[in-house]
Structure formats: C-alpha cells, structure tokens
C-alpha cells in the first residue's frame, strides 16, 4: 500500500478537534499507532473510541495544556520512540492592530509557536524521534504566503512557526529526521466556527474568492499530513504543501 504508516508511532497535538483529529483518524487507517494530545476529555474519549474501532493498535492519549511546560516535559518522558510527530494544536483571534492586547498576543504565540518549539525541543533532547522519522507542522497560508485584515497576531505566530520548521529541517537532517509543513487556507473546523466576526454574507463572499469555490475540509489537510509522514516522502524536507483551493494563486 502506498503511503502506509503501518507499525509507526505517530504523536499528534490538537488531536481532539478539526485538522488534528482528521489526521489522527487517517493515520490509524493507514496502520499507525496514534498517540494523541489534547485538553478536552470528552472529545478525547470519543476520538479514542473511534481509533480503537479502526485498528487494534495501542492508541493512547495525553490530556494536557501544551502551554504548561511542566506538563509537556512530563508527557514527553512517558512517550515511546516516535516515527512521526504532527503539530496541529493552535488557536486564532482577529484584532485590528490598535486593539491588540499584549496578553492575547502572548496567548496566541504561546500555543501556536512556542508550544510547538518546546515540544520538539523536549522530544529531541530526550531522543524520542527515531532516525528517519518525520515531523509535520500545521502552519497556514497566513503569515507565510498572505495575510488578512485583523490577522496580525496569528500571522506572526505562523510566520515564526514556519521559520522554526526550516531551521529544524536543517538541524535534524543529520539524523535523517525530516521536517515539513502543511499550509492550509480556511478549513471548516471549530477554529473558524468560533470566529463570529464575519457575517454570513461576508463568508459567502470570502468563499467566492477561492478558485475552487469552497473552504477546505479537515480531511483535505489530513491527506497531505499522511503523505509527509510516509516513507514515500523520505527525500522531502524543509518544504511546505499549500492546501488552499488555489487562493494564493490570485
């Protein structure tokens, strides 16, 4: 089977919702044992039930807030050796520049950028990534290829994450560890549903800006994540896959 993840241990953050959840399910379908990180217990239980219904692999979960460094360190200590890591946890908040609050920008960067850096750092320090493993950062087109009004805090967090991905790809290459990102446009998840700032009319107009005339689904992104985790991409590192229905062509 192409893009098989059979026998691989894959750790996924943000596994309880949206893109991370779709990635967890796809990884299990491709034969992986999935180790899930999230905060919401109820959603984690439902995910684990789904994963166990897909395969008999020893899927497991870790409930923690990734911005709490001690919890992160404790979690890494318990991890088995990893073949793959997907960094999908993240939040978004729109604020025009004059209204940016320092605590909000800290909150955004803490989870979107620093938590991903801290987790990879700790995993490297404890030598939990096997040789020839693959790390996939869930970045964005925002802050990397484009940006939008009110999206400064998020764009900064993702631009920083992208810069870190490239540096990690270079540093970890000597161990055969690959680092890449997927860079989605707007994907139908809680992240955008919880943002009520756009009216239904504005959302219709926004969808119309996409050459493929729809927002993405979590699965659209999960397929690219599986691709980058698989051994078929063993000579791809430091790059990104834009999954945006053609938006950045314009």
């Amino acid at each position, binding site marked *: 089977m192409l893009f098989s993840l059979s026998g691989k241990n894959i750790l996924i953050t943000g596994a309880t919702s949206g893109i991370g959840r779709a990635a967890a399910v796809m990884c299990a379908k491709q034969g992986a044992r999935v180790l899930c990180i999230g905060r919401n217990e109820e959603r984690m239980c439902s995910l684990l039930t789904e994963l166990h219904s897909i395969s008999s692999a020893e899927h497991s979960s870790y409930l923690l807030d990734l911005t709490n460094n001690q919890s992160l360190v404790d979690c890494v200590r318990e991890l088995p050796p990893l073949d793959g890591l997907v960094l999908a946890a993240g939040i978004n908040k*729109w*604020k*025009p520049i004059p209204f940016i609050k320092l605590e909000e920008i800290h909150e955004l960067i803490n989870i979107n950028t620093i938590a991903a850096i801290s987790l990879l750092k700790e995993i490297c320090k404890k030598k939990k990534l096997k040789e020839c493993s693959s790390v996939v950062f869930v970045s964005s087109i925002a802050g990397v290829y484009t940006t939008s*009004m*009110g999206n400064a805090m998020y764009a900064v967090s993702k631009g920083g994450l992208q810069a870190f991905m490239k540096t990690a790809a270079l540093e970890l290459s000597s161990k055969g560890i690959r680092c890449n990102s997927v860079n989605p446009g707007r994907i139908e998840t809680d992240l955008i549903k919880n943002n*009520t*700032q756009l*009216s*239904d009319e*504005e959302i219709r107009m926004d969808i119309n800006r996409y050459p493929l005339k729809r927002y993405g689904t979590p699965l659209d992104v999960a397929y690219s994540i599986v691709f980058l985790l698989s051994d078929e991409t063993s000579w791809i590192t430091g790059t990104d896959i834009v999954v945006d229905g053609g938006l950045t062509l314009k």
Partner: protein
Amino acid sequence: MEKFIELFAEQLDAMSEVTLNADTRFRELDEWTSLVALSIIAMVDEEYGVSLSGNDIRSVNTLGELYNLIQEKL
C-alpha cells in the same frame, strides 16, 4: 449615544469630515470597510464589554440601531 458616535468616528479612516448621527446608515458610508467592521467589533468589546458578531452588525442599519443593540446586550 454621543460618546458612542465619537468612538465610532474614531474607527473611520476619514480624511474628509463625515458628520455622523443616530440616523446615519453606517454600512453605506464610503469609509465602511471590512477592517472598520472588525474595528467596531473590537472597540465595542473594549469599551462596553459586549461581543458583537458580524451578523449583529448586518442586522441593523443606522448608528442609533447599532447603539440600541449594544444596550440590549449590556
């Protein structure tokens, strides 16, 4: 209401002096843009502790109606 109109006017990038009052149909102003809409949402949150949605803003026409909507949500 006067204070609200003042705060609203601050969010417009108006080079030209627009005169605003309770009857102004704000979404028809030349200065009305998606960024102004986001700024109004953020200003109302900061000044009144009220969270307006994009749909709330589209549900009213005049500044007076917008002000009343905020009062209802206080």
